[in-house]
């Protein structure tokens, strides 16, 4: 039973990824803008013959179906092709940029979770008080200011006025570990704020839900210390919903860091994708979106699998 459940979920995931790939492929071919023209440089017009020759070199003059089938068979072997502008494998690009987005996302999740869960617990425990109101308002505010606004404010304040951290860029951890973290901090915190806000709210409402349950009354009646009740029992039960939210936010982040990577010049997957879109670099666009969608689908499926494991009723 369990195996079938897991296999079915994975099977569904694979089909979804294939469909996403197909949609992306088609959308791209309908976008105006000829990659061949862009490869030849747009500062100066190229001869029509040069463009035609480039289209042949890039394989763009073949019938769509041939291109599609060729690409799909390559994908299955995890060959995403080469960039249209040079012969570098798409997988090289993605392998270079994906970890940087992941690092940013994970750092943000960690910071956001720490802040969010703490605040959520406080608000739940002190429900109805001024503290609760303040925390709830801060949480609402955290979700309300767009990341590009808070990001800009941070850069202005912390980098340019106070000179505490670099304004942008990326250095390899191996070259300069301290510099690496210095550059990671601002973008991670900027993303972490709205995360913390939504995690705090989820934590709060989830804890309130559990606090209202009968077994909590029972524990208290038995004379158990309040701290133990909260942390050992209530939190443990409430945390499941919170973890779900965290998982979903992580999934969203993989493709959602566009604005932050743009602001902080962080060389992640999102900026790779945006540049590729600007350059109509089809193989990179296709490869990146598939990777992003695959992450999204897999994380969602994992959450469902975990849910299914923990609560057999939902299978």
């Amino acid at each position, binding site marked *: 039973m369990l195996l079938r459940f897991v296999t079915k979920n994975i099977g569904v995931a694979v089909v979804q990824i294939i469909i996403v790939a197909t949609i992306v492929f088609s959308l791209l071919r309908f976008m*105006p*803008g*000829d990659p061949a*023209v*862009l*490869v*030849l*440089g*747009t*500062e*100066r*017009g*190229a*001869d029509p*013959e*040069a463009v035609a*020759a*480039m289209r042949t070199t890039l394989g763009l003059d073949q019938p769509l179906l041939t291109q599609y089938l060729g690409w799909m068979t390559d994908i299955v072997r995890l060959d995403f092709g080469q960039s249209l*502008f*040079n*012969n*570098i494998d798409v997988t*090289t*690009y993605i392998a*270079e940029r994906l970890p940087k987005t992941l690092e940013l996302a994970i750092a943000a999740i960690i*910071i956001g979770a*720490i*802040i969010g*869960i*703490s605040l959520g617990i406080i608000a739940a425990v002190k429900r109805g008080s001024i503290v609760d109101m303040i925390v709830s308002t801060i949480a609402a505010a955290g979700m309300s200011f767009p990341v590009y606004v808070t990001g800009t404010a941070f*850069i202005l304040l912390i*980098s340019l006025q106070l*000179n*505490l*951290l*670099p*304004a*942008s*860029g*990326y250095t390899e951890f191996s070259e*300069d570990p*301290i*510099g690496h*973290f*210095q550059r990671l*901090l601002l973008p991670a915190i900027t993303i972490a704020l709205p995360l913390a806000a939504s995690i705090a709210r989820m934590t709060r409402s989830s804890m309130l839900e559990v606090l209202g349950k009968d077994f909590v009354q029972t524990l208290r009646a038995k004379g158990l210390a309040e*701290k133990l009740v*909260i*942390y050992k029992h209530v939190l443990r039960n409430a945390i499941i919903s919170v973890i779900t939210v965290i998982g979903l936010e992580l999934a969203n982040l993989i493709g959602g860091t566009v604005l932050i990577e*743009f*602001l*902080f*010049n962080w*060389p992640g997957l999102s900026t*790779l994708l945006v*540049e590729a*879109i*600007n*350059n*109509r670099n089809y193989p990179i666009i296709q490869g990146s979106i598939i990777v992003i969608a695959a992450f999204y689908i897999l994380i969602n499926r994992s959450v469902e699998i975990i849910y299914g494991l923990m609560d057999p009723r939902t299978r």
Partner: protein
Amino acid sequence: MVKKFMTIFILLFVVAGVLGACSSNEGSSEGQQDNGGSEGDKSGGSLTFGLAAEPTTMDPYIQNGTHGRTVKLAIFRGLYNYNEKGELEAELAESYTANDDLTSYTFKLRDAKFHNGDPVTAEDVKYTFERILDPESGATFKTELSIIDSIEVDGDKTITFNLSEPSAPFVHYTALPESVIVSKSYTEANIDDIATKPMGAGPFKLVSWTQGSNIIVEKFEDYYKEGQPYLDEIEFQFYTEENTRVNALRAGDVDLVETVPWKDTESIGNTDNLKLESANGPFMALQFNTDFEPFSKPEVRQAIAYAIDRNAIINTAFSGRGEPIYGMATLEGYMGYDEKFTTYFEHNIEKAKELLAEAGYPDGFKATLLSTSQYGMHEQTAVAVQSELKKIGIEVELELPDWATRINKNVEGDYQFLVVGTSGDITDGDWMSNFYTGGPARLNNSANFDDEQINSLLEQGRKEVDPAKREEIYTQLMERAMELSPFVYLSWREQSYGMQENVNGFVNLDGFLSFQSGVTLEETYIED
């Protein structure tokens, strides 16, 4: 438990703050490294250069943008190149001679080496140009160079180009960054990777190119100019977002940046430890599709030239930097220059309305202006033009797709008029060919504009041997160009490089050559 969380969090923040404070006291790390020499010795040091984009390719025969050309000119050299004064200077060639009717040019090469130690020979030069002329090649200037009929090699150091027609500007075309010399053996062996593994005979050689991050080049010890380059190493970093680029300069993360946004020029100029190198370079103009009825009439185009207050554009899109062009985009010293051409038009709304009425549009008309949302200066110029033309009754709607789409529409002639920001490629008068030769839509012409007189004058200018007669031809050409105004020139765009106080020797070339300023990297040094 909550308290534990909070303490951890506060600790993290404090640690980060301490780390931040500790390291920032050391100042900008990359820029002020070991300046090897002292006592006025310029050599040594490494420079971090913030480019506005990552080059898409380093295959030299493709015009890959200012950012690409900057790197290209660090790594390669041509037979001739433009120097910091904007003059043709012999590089890999020592000298040249031409026959009387300018149909044959012979170059003598100097002793020079490629980065892999191979000598630069006439065979390499021949290979370079044959590669450009190959029918399958994507070389940007193939058309201009296609007047080369045959190439003769005489020993290792002499090469002759036989042309199919007389060409006065030929040497200028060899000075283009796209005509730099490549090694025949190296290119043939590396043909699949040539876009990412450039190797030339220039002052710096490629160390590494990390896609999405940086290009690192280091000093080429056997460069043919004694004592140059001064710098040991240059790291080109990519900052596509202009504000991020400027912030990096302010924060000391980089030593030199290109394309300083105009709004930041004043504040950078006023910052103590920073300085600016500014020059008027490319121009902004309007390009017309003469298939669209109102734009088929020269009176309408002239009306537009009279109607637009150039300062409206300069003060808004360019923060007051740059110079208006009320006439032809030509500079003193350029062929055919005459002051009357730079004041051919003036801001005169009444005159504009008169011309419109003459052309048959007393109540104006509707038109769509193509530009792009991807580059602020283009979009802002379009907004300003829209506002100005409203005053003479031309209702303009803006079309602002991304750059790739805008280029597509341009090349296919799918526009009514558009905003263009570009430059001539060479300083010789023949730069006008690219723009004024008649025909159907291509990138740099006014689609479907075709004037016999202009076509003929352009051809004559190319073939005329006598410099005085050439001047006359180009003067006539400009007169006609103003009468018909297939292009309405708006303003000179000021290009600024921003740098730390201690960066010297980098020169922003004037006029059309601003995009080729990378050639001065060989003379750039960092002062202690």
